[in-house]
């Protein structure tokens, strides 16, 4: 991936965020992403994101689980190690359904979790740039990517005008890289956070 320039705006509440997203998209700026402490209903629609295809992935994992487990058990109990269990036929389909079902669910769940983490670029021993640490706590952070045509100061004042309480410009790596947060980065170093009661 590459290092790009971003303008980052923080919002205190989710209410103005919808309006701000609409205005940003209308004025033609390139919306990179919006980071929020909790899922916000309808924000994906407002941002114009397409429907996630993670359920399609889940369906494929499930199909994989069903077929692989059924064929594995068929091979084991009819070819590799046929046993007479209570006079049942070797191909004892009803007895395999629970196992097939469980394996289907397992494949779908684990597969979807891993896919989700991959899409979000989350993994152990991997780092990713955080635009604002309080996006995990109480700030709603909108990130706009700068193109060669973007005027940063104009964009910054535009962000303030649509309700951002804090605006800054960052050069950031968009991808992920090997590294550890706890060893390599001192969080809040050199920043004094004021906490008001």
């Amino acid at each position: 991936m590459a290092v790009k320039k971003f303008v980052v705006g923080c919002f205190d509440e989710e209410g103005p965020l919808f309006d701000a997203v609409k205005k940003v998209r209308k004025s033609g700026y390139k919306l990179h992403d919006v980071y929020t402490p909790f899922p916000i209903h309808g924000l994906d629609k407002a941002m114009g994101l397409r429907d996630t295809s993670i359920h399609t992935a889940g369906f494929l994992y499930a199909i994989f689980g069903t077929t692989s487990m059924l064929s594995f058990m068929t091979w084991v109990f009819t070819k590799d190690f046929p046993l007479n269990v209570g006079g049942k036929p070797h191909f004892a389909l009803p007895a395999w359904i629970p196992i097939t079902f469980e394996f289907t669910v397992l494949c779908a769940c684990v597969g979807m979790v891993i896919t989700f983490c991959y899409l979000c670029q989350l993994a152990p021993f991997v780092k990713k740039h955080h635009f604002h640490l309080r996006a995990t706590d109480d700030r709603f952070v909108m990130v706009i990517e700068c193109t060669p045509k973007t005027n940063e100061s104009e964009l910054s004042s535009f962000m303030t005008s649509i309700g951002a309480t804090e605006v800054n410009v960052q050069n950031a790596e968009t991808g992920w890289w090997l590294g550890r947060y706890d060893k390599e980065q001192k969080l809040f170093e050199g920043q004094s956070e004021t906490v008001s009661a």
Partner: protein
Amino acid sequence: MAIKEFFAIPARYRTWSLALMGVGILSVIIGFFIYGIPNEHNHHGARFWASLLQNSVYFLLVVNASMFFICATTLAFGGWQIVFRRVTEAISVAVIPLGIITLIVLIALVTVDPHIFHWLHPEGDKILMGKSAFLNPTFYIIWTILAIGLWIVLGYKMRQLSRELDNNPPVDAEAGRKYIFKNTVWAAIFIVWFALTVMSTVPWLWLMSIDAHWYSTMYSWYTFASTFVAGMALITIFVVYLKNQSYLEYTNEEHIHDLGKFMFAFSIFWTYLWFSQYMLIWYANIPEETVYFNSRITSKSHNGAYSGLYWFMFALNFLAPILILMRRGSKRNYTTVTFMAIVIIFGHWLDFYQMVFASLFPDHVTLNLFDFGVAAGFVGLIMFATGRALTKAPLLAKNHPFIKESIIHHT
């Protein structure tokens, strides 16, 4: 756009409901002369009564599932269904005429005795003697009257509570809270009675006792799941119909999506129970239990007459919903959802058909126009009763405390 508060029955709707009821009455009369009069081909007229038993019990439990849906969502403090709650209430009104018909049929089964319940004559049969404390005409009649009667009375109470707010909205939040609490109390009473009847005793008495020697602990749940998913399908059909007639302005694809989820989830729940019942019997392989599947499933040693119908019913009730309703888009599409609702209602009607007929006439399938005619009659009656009930109250319970939550509902 002005809000259409009251449903006015369109002429076509009325014609259809009356025509279907006419077909039903005609079928019952013709069926009685062909199948109902005892002769040497048809002992005791069981064929006629079996069809009445299947149809009346099935459609009664389907419309009653609507009241169960109201009470279950009330107990769960659900808000999303309020915009179309009046539709579910109207469907539950159909419990009154269907309940009366079913009551007559069920009492006739033990008084006229067309040889559907052989537990009526337990003499000399050790197993039936052992079960006679439960399977006897007195208990059967009392319990049937109580079951249907209390469904009607408690359902009426729930509908009254809903109407109460139409002209006098709750004055403040406290009054709203009190109203919700009162609702939960009555809903809880209904649910308890529902658990004691539909989820346990009633399917044992009305359906499982056809095979009086056989029993399955899954049977009542299975019956409940069957009728509940068909009930959700019926609600969906009425909601979509009213939408198409430009009623229910506040109901949109978000609500349809949730109804679709119910149909999808409970189709799988039904399959789960179906499979649990089947697998335990298959696994244990005890002759007293496997006898149930002799007529239903073809095996190496035995040719079940109902096998084709049984697996067709399974495909309609499991494969079709799971494959078609799985996608988000299909649950939000009015056409797909309506199509699936019809498939599900028909599929579970076939399920009830095999529950009754494969036990009574195990040698060959007798499904013909007579059965469909009787079913048409009940469909017409549901249409008629629900349509009438829809005109009686405003379509939107506009003063319900949860109405806003329902309007802005979002999945």
